[in-house]
């Protein structure tokens, strides 16, 4: 019998830390479960933000924002054009200057600025780890959002 990922798990908020620059800290960690990652994005006024996504122990996404107010992460194409009456207006985080980050596919592990587009959710069989870091030297606020589902 096929497993069903019926447990949605989404969260958004501000990741605040004065931790060592470039030191990755976990945002969410899932172990021992199957599931699907639908999206994870971050944006910060300052400083630059880094995201690392590890699926079943394999690094599959590694990026850093190019500058202030740059969206990076992984998102489904459907999430970008789903606001407004006509569903043709980009969601606010992806509009105007916030959406100037280089776009890429998935996986992407170059560690350079890029927002990865996916059409289908990313499956994981046993573990998912999303980590973020920043390049600043004082306390920093990083806006984050993620959506996933687990068995």
């Amino acid at each position, binding site marked *: 019998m096929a497993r069903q990922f019926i447990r949605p798990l989404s969260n958004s*908020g501000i990741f605040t*830390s*004065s*931790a060592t620059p470039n030191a990755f800290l976990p945002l*969410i*960690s*899932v*172990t*021992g*479960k199957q599931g699907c990652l639908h999206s994870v994005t971050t944006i910060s006024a300052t400083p630059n933000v880094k995201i690392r996504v590890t699926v079943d122990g394999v690094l599959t996404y590694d990026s850093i924002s190019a500058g202030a107010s740059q969206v990076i992460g992984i998102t489904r194409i459907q999430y970008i054009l789903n606001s407004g009456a006509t569903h043709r207006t980009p969601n606010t985080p992806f509009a105007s200057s916030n959406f100037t980050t280089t776009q890429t596919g998935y996986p992407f592990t170059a560690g350079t600025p890029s927002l990865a587009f996916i059409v289908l959710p990313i499956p994981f069989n046993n573990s998912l780890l999303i980590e973020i870091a920043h390049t600043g030297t004082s306390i920093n606020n990083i806006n984050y959002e993620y959506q996933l589902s687990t068995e």
Partner: protein
Amino acid sequence: MYTFVEQLVYKQDNYPDGSSITQYVGLFTQQRETEEEIITESFNLEQGTYIEVNRSPKGA
């Protein structure tokens, strides 16, 4: 001698099958004795186990 420390707080849900989900909850700052040992603590609440990690001196 006191200093501020920051605590990244995580919510950890442990399931009977051995699986777990650990989510970042937020950051809290506290004034503590500078000489206090940096440790990891956990405490149980109704919704799961909350873990304080990465406690470190934030500033003099």
